[in-house]
């Protein structure tokens, strides 16, 4: 079985339940965050090329595109965190009878944190 087939089955959304879609979102967010970690290592290592290179790199993230990037990253972070917390609880066999309520609460928390984050990123940092 190849990676493509695995990804297709993980990220399948047609005809899937809210639980499966949440699993797909959690996995996708996890993969994006792992990729971001690599990008972050690269951007930090520009320090080795001198402070001016690092500062020039940081300027990119202060631009409007940088802010959009921050919002997207924050969205993946809160989705992965909130859905991950839901998953950690049910995967430990806890609150299984209430897993649907728990999942709804995880989504609500993620969306609330997303809105708060967007306000902070655009109005405080931006």
């Amino acid at each position, binding site marked *: *079985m190849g990676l493509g*087939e*695995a990804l297709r*089955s*993980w990220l*399948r959304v*047609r*005809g*899937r*339940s809210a*639980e*499966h879609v949440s*699993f*797909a979102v959690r*996995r996708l967010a996890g993969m994006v965050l792992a990729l971001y970690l690599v990008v972050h290592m690269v951007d930090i290592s520009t320090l080795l090329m001198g402070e001016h290179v690092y500062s020039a790199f940081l300027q990119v993230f202060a631009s409007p595109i940088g802010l959009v990037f921050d919002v997207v990253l924050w969205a993946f972070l809160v989705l992965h965190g909130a859905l991950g917390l839901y*998953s950690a609880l*049910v*995967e*430990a*066999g*806890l609150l*299984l009878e209430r*897993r649907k309520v728990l999942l709804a609460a995880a989504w609500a928390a993620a969306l609330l944190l997303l809105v708060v984050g967007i306000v902070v990123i655009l109005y405080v940092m931006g």
Partner: protein
Amino acid sequence: MRLVVRRWKEGWRAPRYDVFEVEADPSESVLDLVERVSLKLDPTLTFEHACHHGVCGACGMVVNGVERLTCVTRVGDVARNGVILVEPLHGFKVVSDLVVDKSRMFSRYPDDTRTLERVAAQVEKLWDCVECGICYSACPVACSYPSYLGPSVLAWAFHRAVEEGRVPAPVASRSGVWSCHAAFDCSEKCPVNFQPGEKIMRLRRLLLRGAVEVV
């Protein structure tokens, strides 16, 4: 009504989708439609069924993207704009058209497993599971990790663990309960509400607490 069927037979390089125009009553089953096509329009169309009333578990297929027992799925409930797309279950090797090889599930039950056919009067069937394989098709882990024991087998192991206080080592291994990632589509799609996802997590809890022996 337009019935679209995913076709593949040994020797074909790729699957194809055949379209059949059929008369259909909204209250008849999707399986009735498939049978009519095979009887009247294309005798080479292969599919599985036996009981026709949701007990044997043979007729599982993916209907308009959702795993269902087709003998108890009404045409009127699933048709979209007069179209029904029927595909074989995911997670199993396709043998021919809508027939899949479910041995990855059946071969994991020990010989003394109490399946529907082997049931003795003193116990419930296989604790209600009809062994349709729908939970494998719905599970993203079963579809991407062939060694995974799978939802119904692990749910069976949970019942054994509760009754006997022990589970076979593979159940407590990476190809067992620890590979489940809580997508819960197995439980959502299971036609008899056997709740394999919940049972896997309960079994994990028993293992974490050391309440069952691994043999």
